[in-house]
């Protein structure tokens, strides 16, 4: 390709292909971010992977975020994709209900998604459908909850020097 890949081109190509399904497009600190419906995550990633001018062949990061206040879309799964040729990174977000945290796995596209999705499952309980080996990776196997969800307090409630409110978990000082 002769033209240099920019955020505008990526945005244009995505909207051409997926139309209104791509939402919440923004550019925090110059990094193009967008949201897609959770059923479309694989289709969008495949498109970004396969198209020769987009060529996002490297999955830098998979992680989740818990937003307890957003009813019906409490869990966000965030993918960071990297185009190694043009050195451009983008961020793709999907949101899911915490009671139904089923998301398609990206392991068929990106090998590195294997352990990153296991980690995301370990800490947030996102159930990656089709993952070859979805079990805990860092915590003990006997753990029966997902510790990074915000209903679990970060600190001892008796401690006043570290308020849970600073960590987005509601004020512990009552």
């Amino acid at each position: 390709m002769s033209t240099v890949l920019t955020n505008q081109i990526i945005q244009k190509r995505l909207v051409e292909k997926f139309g209104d399904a791509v939402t919440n497009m923004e550019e925090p600190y110059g990094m193009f971010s967008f949201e897609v419906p959770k059923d479309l995550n694989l289709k969008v990633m495949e498109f970004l992977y396969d198209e020769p001018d987009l060529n996002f062949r490297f999955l830098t990061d998979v992680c989740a975020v818990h937003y307890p206040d957003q009813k019906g879309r409490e869990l966000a799964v965030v993918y960071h994709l990297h185009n190694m040729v043009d050195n451009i990174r983008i961020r793709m977000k999907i949101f899911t209900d915490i009671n139904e945290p089923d998301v398609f796995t990206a392991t068929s596209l990106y090998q590195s998604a294997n352990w990153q999705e296991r980690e995301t499952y370990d800490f947030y309980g996102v159930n990656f459908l089709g993952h070859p080996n979805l079990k805990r990776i860092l915590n003990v196997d006997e753990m029966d909850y997902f510790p990074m969800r915000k209903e679990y307090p970060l600190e001892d409630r008796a401690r006043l020097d570290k308020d849970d409110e600073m960590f987005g978990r509601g004020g512990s000082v009552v």
Partner: protein
Amino acid sequence: MDVREQIRETNKDFPGQIHPVPGGGIVVSKFDDIINWARSNSLWPLTFATSCCGIEMMSVASSKYDFSRFGFEVARASPRQADVIIIAGTIVNKMAPVLKRLYDQMPDPKYVIAMGACAISGGPFFYNTYSVVKGADHVIPVDVYIPGCPPRPEALLHALIALQEKIKSGFTREQIRGEKPQP
């Protein structure tokens, strides 16, 4: 006199009394004391470090501090050849079974030193986390605790010498336990 000084004074010389006979003398002593004396002067530590205290432990092993001077001759990479395990770092829930297993694999007599705040109580940072064991003594019995985050190399040397005094006096956890009938 300070208790520690008292202990050091009693353990200063080879255990036993000299019984003078014509042309020389005979040392009269107890086997237990001689064995403890011998053991205390040859303690091989296990190479085991789970976080930053391990760096201080390596410093103590290297030439500037050099715990070989006190009989901690070589750090062994196998628990089957080690006498003392220095728990240098945080023990997380996932590490706890491994630590127990290492301890079980060490041959008797074996001794344990808990080095630093994490090994004593879970640590200044992570003590209240879902993943951290709040003190290695929840998993295995500990003979000597060293406070600090991390402790100075001198503090570790002090603890190692304290362990030697404890062995000579017969007060380690294993020695105390050995006197009672085993279940």
